C-alpha cells in the first residue's frame, strides 16, 4: 500500500497546470525563438499558429538538414520537394504528379477516419498542382495479425482507404500489407497518389499579386482535427488515448469529389492565381506557405471564415484541420466567376482576405473594407511574418548516435508458435515454400484489394496482385507504372542498407515492366528524433536513400517524414517507404511477371549471395548465428535495371519477375500461380539450398522467353556484367526445382534424411495455401490453423522417395 501512496502527488502540492506553450507542444527553447522572431511575447492565437507550423509534421525541423542532402534534380522535373507533389514531364504535353504521405497516428487512434483522411489529404496534394488524381496506392503495416486489436485496425483502416477512394472515384491499384511485431502499438498508413495533368495546368501553392483576393472554399471549419499536426503527429503517444480522438479529422469523400471538380475547373479556366489545400496546420499553414512562396503577405478576416459550429475561439479557427478545404488567390475581377464555379458544384465559398505587400500574416476581427484595409474598429488579433512560420521556422540539429549494441538477428518476425507448425531450418524445401506462401506477409493480398475499386476511370491495365500497377494514358501509347516498397526488417538491423534495398526493389519493380523510373517519393517512418539512436536511424536511411538514388540515376521528387512512431511498448522498425512512378513509352512493350506460354525458357539473372537476416525465411524458420543481412551492389543493380529495359525493348522477354520477399522459390511460384503454368527447373547450388531458394539478396530477376531467345538474353546479360543461367522450362501443373551441384549433396546430408534434393509441389496446392493465407491469419475466413502444415506435409510426401535416395 505504501508504494501506491508515494506515487500520488502530495495533497500539499497540487499539480500545477502546464504552461500554455507546452500544452500546445512548444518547448521552452522554441518559445524563446518565437519571442526572438516577433520581438515580443506571442499572444494565444499567435502561439497556436507557431505551435502547428513549428511542429515536426509541418516544419520538418529535425529532418530538414538531412533531406537537403538528397538528389532532387532530374530531367523534366517541373515541381519537386517543397511543392505539394513532385511533377515530372512525360511528353505529349503531359506531366505526372505523385507523392506519398503518412497518416499513422490518426489511424492508430481512429482507424477508419484516420485512413480515410489520409487518402483525402494526399489526393488534395495532387489536384492542388492542377493534376487529376488517377490512382492511389496504400502501404499498410501492422503488428501480429492474430491479435484482436490488430484485426480491428486492419478492418477499420482497409475500410477507410476503400470508403474514401471508392467514393471519390480514384482507383486503388497497389500498395503493400506487412505484419511485423514492431508495429503492434503503432500501425503505419502510408498513402501514395498519382495524378495526370496537361503541363499548362501546372499551378503552384502561392499567393501572388498584392491586392488579389484570398478565398476559402470547400467544407466549413469546425473543431475536428485541432492539434492534429502538433499534438498527434509530432509526439509519441499511448495507444487508444480517447483524449486524442478529437484531434483526428473526419473525412467526407463526397465533398472531396466536388472539390476536385471545382478546383480543376478553376485552374483550367485560369480563374485562380495560386491554390493550396488545407491539410496539417489548416488555414495558418495554407496562408503562410502561400504568402511566403510568393514573397507577399495576407490580411485575413477571421469573421469571414464559415464555421460549422458556434463559439469557436480564434485560435481554434486558425489551426482547425477540418477536411476538404482549399485556399486560393484570384484577381478581384475573376471573383464572380470563381464564386459561380463553386456554387455550381454546391461548395461554400467565402472571400476571407487580401494579398498584401508587407510579408506578414495578419488576422483581424471586424472585417475588411472595399479598399482592402481592415474596417475602422476592426481588431488585429495576430500578426506574424509568414517566413517565421515557414521557410525560417526553427531547425533542430539533433544528436545522432549509433546504437551501442546493434540489434542481433533475427529481425522481428512473425511470432513463432508451436501450433503454427512452421518449418524448422533445413526442412524439406517444398514444405518451406508452402509455409512461406501461406504466411501473412507473402500470401495473396486479395482480401484487401478486393475491397478497393481498382478499375474506375478505365485506365487500369493490370489489376492489383501481380507486381507493379500499370495505368494507360488515354489518347497516347504511353503507360505509367507505379509501386511502393519498403524494407523494415533489414532496416532494423542496418538502416543504411535497408533504405538502399528499398530504393533498389521499388525501382526494380518498375524497370521489369520495361518502364523507366521517373523519380521516387518517400515516406520515412521513424522514431522519436530526440532519441539519438532513432535520429541516427533516420540519418542513415536518408544517406542510404540518397546514395541509391544517385547510383540509379533517379531523383527524389518529394516525400514526407513521420517521426515519433513510438508507443509505450517500443519503437517501430525504421521504415523507409519508397514510391516510384515509371514511364513506359509504348504500352505494347509492357512485360508482366506471370509466365505466358508453356515451353518458354526460364532464365535467372544475377547471382545469389549469402545473408539471410531480415528474410521471410528467417522469420519463419529461425536464423543461424552466422547470418547477416544481404549486401547490395548498387552499380550492379543499375546494370540489372538497364539490362532488363534493354531486353524488353528488343522484345526478347515474355515475363519478368523480381526476386524479393521469400527468395527465388517464392518468385518462381508466383510466376506459376499467376499464370496457371508450372515449371520444371534445375538450380545449381554452390552453398546452402536455403540461400539459393529462399535468400533475398537483391539484384536478381526471373525471366521467361521463347527458347530461341535464351541465348540472346544470356549474352545481353553478360554484356551488362550480369550472371545469367537458363534454369529450365515453363509448363505442366507442378513446380519442380531440382537442386544440382556440390552444395545440394552436402546440404542434403546436413539436413538429414527428411529432405529432398528437389522441390516438387502441385500448383493447386500452392495456390490454395497462397489464396487463403491472409484471410485465415486475420480470422476473417474459417480454416484450421494447421491446415497449411497438413498440406505442406502432404506435398512433401510426394518427394519423400527422392529424399530417401539422397539420404542413402
Amino acid at each position, binding site marked *: 500500500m505504501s508504494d501506491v501512496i508515494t506515487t500520488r502527488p502530495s495533497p500539499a502540492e497540487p499539480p500545477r497546470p502546464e504552461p500554455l506553450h507546452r500544452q500546445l507542444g512548444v518547448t521552452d527553447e522554441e518559445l524563446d525563438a518565437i519571442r526572438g522572431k516577433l520581438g515580443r511575447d506571442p499572444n494565444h492565437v499567435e502561439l497556436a499558429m507557431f505551435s502547428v507550423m513549428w511542429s515536426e509534421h509541418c516544419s520538418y525541423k529535425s529532418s530538414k538538414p538531412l533531406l537537403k542532402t538528397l538528389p532532387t534534380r532530374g530531367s523534366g522535373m517541373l515541381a519537386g520537394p517543397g511543392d505539394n507533389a513532385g511533377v515530372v514531364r512525360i511528353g505529349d504535353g503531359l506531366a505526372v504528379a505523385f507523392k506519398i504521405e503518412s497518416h499513422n497516428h490518426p489511424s492508430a487512434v481512429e482507424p477508419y477516419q484516420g485512413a480515410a483522411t489520409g487518402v483525402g489529404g494526399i489526393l488534395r496534394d495532387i489536384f492542388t498542382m492542377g493534376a487529376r488524381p488517377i490512382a492511389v496506392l496504400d502501404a499498410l503495416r501492422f503488428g501480429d495479425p492474430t491479435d484482436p486489436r490488430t484485426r480491428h485496425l486492419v478492418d477499420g483502416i482497409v475500410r477507410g482507404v*476503400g470508403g474514401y477512394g471508392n467514393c471519390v472515384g480514384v482507383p486503388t491499384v497497389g500498395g503493400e500489407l506487412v505484419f511485423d511485431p514492431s508495429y503492434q502499438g503503432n500501425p503505419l498508413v502510408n498513402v501514395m497518389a498519382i495524378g495526370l495533368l496537361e503541363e499548362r495546368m501546372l499551378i503552384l501553392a502561392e499567393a501572388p499579386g498584392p491586392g488579389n483576393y484570398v478565398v476559402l472554399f470547400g467544407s466549413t471549419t469546425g473543431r475536428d482535427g485541432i492539434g492534429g499536426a502538433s499534438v498527434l503527429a509530432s509526439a509519441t503517444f499511448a495507444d487508444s488515448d480517447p483524449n486524442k480522438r478529437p484531434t483526428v479529422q473526419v473525412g*467526407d469523400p*463526397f*465533398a472531396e469529389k466536388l472539390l476536385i471538380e471545382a478546383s480543376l475547373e478553376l485552374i483550367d479556366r485560369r480563374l485562380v492565381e495560386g491554390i493550396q489545400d488545407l491539410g496539417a496546420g489548416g488555414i495558418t499553414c495554407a496562408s503562410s506557405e502561400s504568402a511566403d512562396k510568393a514573397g507577399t503577405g495576407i490580411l485575413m478576416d477571421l469573421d469571414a471564415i464559415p464555421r460549422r459550429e458556434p463559439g469557436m475561439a480564434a485560435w481554434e479557427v486558425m489551426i482547425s484541420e477540418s477536411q476538404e478545404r482549399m485556399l486560393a488567390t484570384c484577381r478581384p475581377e475573376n471573383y464572380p466567376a470563381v464564386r459561380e464555379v463553386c456554387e455550381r458544384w454546391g461548395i461554400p465559398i467565402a472571400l476571407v482576405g487580401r494579398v498584401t505587400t508587407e510579408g506578414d500574416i495578419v488576422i483581424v476581427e471586424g472585417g475588411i473594407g472595399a479598399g482592402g484595409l481592415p474596417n475602422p474598429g476592426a481588431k488585429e488579433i495576430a500578426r506574424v511574418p509568414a517566413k517565421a512560420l515557414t521557410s525560417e521556422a526553427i531547425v533542430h540539429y539533433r544528436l545522432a548516435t549509433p546504437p551501442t549494441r546493434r540489434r542481433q538477428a533475427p529481425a522481428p518476425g512473425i511470432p513463432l508458435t508451436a501450433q503454427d507448425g512452421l518449418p524448422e531450418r533445413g526442412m524439406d524445401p517444398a514444405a518451406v515454400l508452402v509455409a512461406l506462401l501461406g504466411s501473412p506477409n507473402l500470401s495473396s493480398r486479395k482480401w484487401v484489394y478486393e475491397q478497393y475499386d481498382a*478499375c*474506375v476511370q478505365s485506365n487500369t491495365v493490370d489489376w492489383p496482385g501481380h507486381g507493379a500497377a500499370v495505368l494507360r494514358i488515354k489518347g497516347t501509347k504511353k503507360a505509367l507504372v507505379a509501386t511502393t516498397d519498403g524494407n523494415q526488417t533489414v532496416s532494423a538491423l542496418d538502416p543504411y542498407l535497408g533504405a538502399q534495398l528499398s530504393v533498389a526493389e521499388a525501382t526494380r519493380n518498375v524497370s521489369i515492366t520495361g518502364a523507366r523510373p521517373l523519380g521516387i517519393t518517400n515516406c520515412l517512418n521513424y522514431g522519436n528524433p530526440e532519441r539519438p539512436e532513432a535520429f541516427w536511424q533516420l540519418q542513415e536511411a536518408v544517406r542510404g536513400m540518397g546514395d541509391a538514388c544517385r547510383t540509379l540515376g533517379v531523383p527524389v521528387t518529394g516525400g514526407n517524414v513521420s517521426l515519433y512512431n513510438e508507443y509505450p511498448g517500443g519503437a517501430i522498425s525504421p521504415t523507409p517507404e519508397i514510391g516510384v512512378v515509371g514511364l513506359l513509352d509504348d504500352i505494347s512493350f509492357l512485360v508482366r511477371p506471370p509466365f505466358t506460354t508453356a515451353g518458354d525458357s526460364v532464365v535467372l539473372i544475377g547471382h545469389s549471395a549469402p545473408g539471410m537476416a531480415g528474410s521471410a525465411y528467417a522469420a519463419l524458420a529461425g536464423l543461424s548465428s552466422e547470418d547477416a543481412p544481404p549486401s547490395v551492389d548498387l552499380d550492379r543493380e543499375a546494370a540489372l535495371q538497364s539490362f532488363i529495359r534493354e531486353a524488353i525493348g528488343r522484345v526478347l522477354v515474355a515475363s519478368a519477375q523480381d526476386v524479393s520477399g521469400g527468395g527465388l522459390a517464392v518468385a518462381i511460384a508466383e510466376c506459376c500461380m499467376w499464370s496457371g503454368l508450372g515449371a520444371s527447373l534445375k538450380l545449381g547450388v554452390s552453398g546452402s539450398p536455403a540461400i539459393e531458394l529462399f535468400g533475398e539478396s537483391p539484384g536478381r530477376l526471373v525471366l521467361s522467353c521463347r527458347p530461341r531467345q535464351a541465348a540472346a538474353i544470356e549474352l545481353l546479360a553478360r554484356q551488362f556484367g550480369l550472371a545469367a543461367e537458363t534454369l529450365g522450362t515453363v509448363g505442366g501443373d507442378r513446380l519442380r526445382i531440382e537442386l544440382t551441384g556440390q552444395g545440394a549433396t552436402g546440404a542434403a546430408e546436413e539436413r538429414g534424411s527428411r529432405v529432398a534434393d528437389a522441390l516438387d509441389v502441385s500448383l493447386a496446392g500452392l495456390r490454395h495455401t497462397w489464396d487463403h493465407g491472409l484471410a485465415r491469419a486475420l480470422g476473417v475466413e474459417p480454416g484450421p490453423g494447421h491446415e497449411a502444415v497438413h498440406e505442406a506435409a502432404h506435398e512433401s510426401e510426394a518427394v519423400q522417395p527422392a529424399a530417401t535416395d539422397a539420404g542413402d
Partner: protein
Amino acid sequence: MKVGVVTFPGSNSDVDALNALSVAGVDPITLWHESPDLQGVSAVILPGGFAYGDYLRAGVIARFSPVMRGVSEFAAAGGHVLGICNGFQVLAEAGLVPGALLRNRSLRFACRMVAIKPERLDSPFTRAATGRPIHIPIAHGEGCYYADEATLDELERDGQVLFRYVRGDGTPALDPDDPANPNGSLRAIAGVCNAAGNVAGLMPHPERMSESILGSDDGMQLIRSLVESAMEWEAAGRPASAKAAAAVEARR
C-alpha cells in the same frame, strides 16, 4: 446521334460511360443533374458512383433530382435508359425498374471480375451480345438484388431478368453464398428491366471493359446493344410506346 450520360454530384464512373460510348463511335454528352432537359439525346446512361454522396441510402436522393424528371419522361416516351451500378440503384429507388439493392452479403465493398450471362438476346440491352458469359467487373457495396418471391416469379415469367451471375460452367450461381454470386443476389440476378423492356439496370460495369488494353472489351456487347437500339428508335422517328408509358406510370 447523341447519347447522354447523367452526372450527379458524386458520379464517378461517368468518365467510363463516356469513354465506352466514344469507343462505340457515338458522341456522348454529359447531362447535368440540375436540368430536366435531356437535350434531345437518343439514349441515357445513369453511371456508377455515389450520387449526392449516397447518404441515407444509395440512390435515394438522386431520384428526386431535376434530371430524373427528364429521365422519367424520356422513359415513358419509349426512350432507352441504362443504369449501371449506382445508376441501377437510382433507377430502383425511382421505381423505374423493380426490386431493391441491399448491402452485399459480405457487408464489404467488393471489386472484382464476375461472369454474367444474358437471359435473353432479344432485348434492347442484349441484342449485340453473343449469349456466352460476359466477364466484366463489379465495384459496389450495395449490390445484393432483392425482391419478394412473387415479384421474382413475375420477373422471370415476363422475361424481365436480363442478367444472372454465372459460375465457371455457365450455370447461374443461385446459392447466395456461391463465390460466383458476388453479393448474395436473389436468384443470382445481376440485372433487370422494366415491364416495357426499355429501362434496364445492372450492377456490374460493362463500360469498364471497353478496350482490350483494359483486359477485354467484353462489356462493349452491352454498350453496342444500347447504341443499336437507340439508333433504331431514332430512325423510326422515336415511336411512342403505350407499354412504356404505362410501365413508368404504374411505378409512380
